[in-house]
């Protein structure tokens, strides 16, 4: 067989590979430009006590997690049990950013489902969430001790994501032996 008859087949194989890669990628997961960059500074009233502010300073000094959630977010309810487990594991302190929410509803939510957060910042207008590039709760950020964003997960956390994406990065950032 002449090689030129193989050409259309090769072109076809190339297209199949191209589309296979394209179909595997989920366009709703937009990579964050914040990864590897300093986390945006913020200071907001706390959820439990508006007089006490919660800000980036609270997160610094150790590897920490920031979870963006809201009571109107279905996926947040889905991941809540895992958040409680993560908080209990003591791997990294978990902070919350309550995004465009109702304070009463949010407090009732934590009362009902349990409170995994060390502190929750109450972002009523969503202005801080814009700085963090948040576009769909739940989103979970991992920060190192200096406040550099190491990783961002979109959509509800799962055990697999926690073990495969978060734990290795947390341990590496803490400087644990692998």
């Amino acid at each position, binding site marked *: 067989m002449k090689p030129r008859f193989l050409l259309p087949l090769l072109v076809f194989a190339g297209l199949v590979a191209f589309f296979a890669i394209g179909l595997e990628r989920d366009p*709703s997961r*937009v990579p964050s430009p*914040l990864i590897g960059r300093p986390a945006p500074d913020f200071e907001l009233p706390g959820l439990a006590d508006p007089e006490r502010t919660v800000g980036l300073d609270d997160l610094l000094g150790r590897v920490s997690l920031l979870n963006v959630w809201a009571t109107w977010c279905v996926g947040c309810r889905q991941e809540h049990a895992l958040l409680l487990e993560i908080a209990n594991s003591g791997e990294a302190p978990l902070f919350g950013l309550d995004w465009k929410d109702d304070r009463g509803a949010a407090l009732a939510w934590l009362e009902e489902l349990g409170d995994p957060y060390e502190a929750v910042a109450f972002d009523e207008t*969503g*202005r801080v969430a814009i*700085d963090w590039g948040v576009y769909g709760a739940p989103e979970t950020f991992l920060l190192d001790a200096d406040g550099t964003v190491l990783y961002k997960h979109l959509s509800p956390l799962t055990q697999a994501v926690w073990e495969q994406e978060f734990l290795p990065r947390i341990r590496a950032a803490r400087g644990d032996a692998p």
Partner: protein
Amino acid sequence: MRRIAAALLASVWLSALAIDSEPAFEDPELQARFEHLTGQIRCLVCQNNTIADSNAGLAADLRAEIRSMLADGRSDAEIIEFLTARYGDFVLYRPPWAPRTWLLWLAPLILLGLGVVVAARIVVARSRLPIEDDADARAE
């Protein structure tokens, strides 16, 4: 009955006209820039909409943000930079011209070039074939 119909029509028309409750800029130039900017930013919640025509909460927040930045006298480039620093180039419906997007922008030209080369080779190859048509042969 007519009045009710007229009122309904008017309300539909008005709500189609203004997606936000904020009034338009008094300065028509600012308003034009606002409309131009919001028309080229992708709404990340509903990705096939621009933030100009999406009624998602985030799109409304971003419109308000752009509105206040324009009112503060920030340039279009600063506003685009503000958005891409937070949401990445994906918020732009028109990707920037950068090394990593060269292939994207040049792909149509490259494919067109390949097509021209293939077509030219076929035409040249055919033109060198001996004439086999009897009618043509008789005419000579």
